[in-house]
């Protein structure tokens, strides 16, 4: 593979975007590699703003963006002809059935009418709406609306897909099917895609690379496998401690260089640097007169990367 094909599909250099006085992106410099890249971050991190700026919907106050080697400010139409965008919110053309809607989107993207209609049938089958393609889009369920948004983004066969929270509002089965589609596109169909999501498992399942955002800044980026490489050992930890003293204990733990954050369960995840591992944790707990009730080695997850990157406690 040549160097050109390995060059990033999207690059941002010192990009700042604000809504009025509220900054949404703060001097963001990052790039998105070829293949499937997750854009991960909590709600309000600036993920959708970044996608809208790349589409040219928002003009940055500062900085430069390139998509597929083209400057966003200079060639917005050329870029939009080569990308597909699946917006986060419900979006459709009113008064059309699914096949008309998708074919219309194909025509808008520059496909001849006959080809657009043929492609519309094909992509509707691909996203699982083949049997419902003559129904008015307004009668679709939330899950079906997500699928048709993917279909309209795919109909013109883009080189790059922007998917903004594609599993929003879907039931577990529909979510799995949507993620299967996205994974298939990225891994088997050779399509570059940027998957914006606040859901770690979605990104971990469908993507190879990740860009983690928080409060308008990029806080981590790279191949997921590399980011998950342990720089120490990860443990699940539960301690017996007096009410009100846990926060102080955690602060002292972090001061000792042990990353620690709470999970949804009553256990914490602790990243112990160096080779000491469990011995260091027990020694620290003993010194603090805290009883360890549960300690189990764990494997690093994207959640650890995310929690560390956004400084979650």
């Amino acid at each position, binding site marked *: 593979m040549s160097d050109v094909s390995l060059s990033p599909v999207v690059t941002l250099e010192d990009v700042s975007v604000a809504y009025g006085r509220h900054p949404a992106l703060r001097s963001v410099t990052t790039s998105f590699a070829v293949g499937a890249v997750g854009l991960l971050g909590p709600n309000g991190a600036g993920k959708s703003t970044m996608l809208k700026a790349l589409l040219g*919907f928002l003009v940055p106050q500062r900085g430069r963006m390139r998509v597929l080697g083209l400057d966003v400010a200079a060639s917005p139409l050329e870029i*939009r*002809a080569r990308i597909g965008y699946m*917006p986060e919110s419900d*979006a459709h053309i009113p008064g059309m059935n699914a096949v008309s809607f998708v074919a219309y989107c194909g025509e808008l993207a520059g496909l001849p009418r006959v080809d657009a209609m043929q492609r519309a049938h094909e992509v509707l089958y691909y996203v699982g709406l083949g049997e419902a393609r003559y129904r008015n889009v307004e009668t679709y369920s939330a899950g079906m609306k997500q699928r048709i948004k993917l279909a309209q983004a*795919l109909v013109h066969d883009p080189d790059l897909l922007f998917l903004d929270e594609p599993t929003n509002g879907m039931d577990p089965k529909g979510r799995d099917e949507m993620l299967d589609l996205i994974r298939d596109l990225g891994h088997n169909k050779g399509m570059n895609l940027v998957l914006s999501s606040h859901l770690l498992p979605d990104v971990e399942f469908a993507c190879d690379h990740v860009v983690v955002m928080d409060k308008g800044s990029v806080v981590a980026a790279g191949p997921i496998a590399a980011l998950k490489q342990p720089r120490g050992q990860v443990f699940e930890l539960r301690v017996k401690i007096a009410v009100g003293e846990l926060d102080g204990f955690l602060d002292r733990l972090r001061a000792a260089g042990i990353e620690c954050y709470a999970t949804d369960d009553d256990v914490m995840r602790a990243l112990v640097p160096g080779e000491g591992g469990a011995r260091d944790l027990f020694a620290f707990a003993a010194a603090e007169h805290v009883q360890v009730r549960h300690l189990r080695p764990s494997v690093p997850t994207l959640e650890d990367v995310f929690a560390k990157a956004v400084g979650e406690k």
Partner: protein
Amino acid sequence: MPIHDQGYRRYGGARGRRGHGWAVIAAAGLRTFFARRIFLGLLLMAWLPAIVRAVQFYAVANFPQASVLAPTPDTFRQFLDQQTNFVFFMTVYAGAGLIANDRRANALQIYLSKPLTRSDYVFGKLAILTTCLLMVTWVPAMALLALQAAFAGNVTFLRGHIYLIPAITVFSTLQVVTVSAAMLALSSLSKSSRYVALLYAALVFFSVALFGVLRFVTRDTSLSWISLPNDLAQLGDAIFRVPLRFATPWPVALMMIVALLVASGLVLERRVRGVEVVG
């Protein structure tokens, strides 16, 4: 097991030239309207006056007793005046939802994520409404001119009043573009086509009613410029070279129309965006 592969396939066909997005929007919009019975019914009703006039021209050409009904240039001015009511109904029916429905369905971000400019989008929508309106003004008026010549078996009338062709064209275009731009601007302000329809009707009726009150109070028609229908009527009279119906100079009416077009353009420029930014 499927008979053929229903997986995703790459597209290897041709892609059209860019810059024709507005034509795609216009064609799709017109196809949608022509598939509706209400629209076709409205169009048919709008053509009834033209059919009556055609019968009149036929009678004049074939029955000497009907010579008192012989067409004059004023006949065409009166015809376009009559069509104003149908222009109103067609504008409300076809125009109110053009952008409002797209805003309700968040369709703008779909449109503007394609290789389209905001101008393409607006011109596409404008083309839908202007085409619909030209079909109740310019098309029947020109058809009547042609029928008059056909029934008479000569082009004497047409040759004697050749200015009718540009007059009908200029007035119809001015009328259609003005009301289309105003309606599109109103349509971009709301997500409800019903609200837009009511707003447009209220603006038209209110301005006409206000002029009526002022006319009664001042016993003068020089304030006719406050009403869009009056401005268009005044300009129509000037274009067709018939006596002006109001005391307002026609350049003032023209200035009002231009101001309305500029205001509509500014509203559309602000409202037609891929992202709604408040602040």
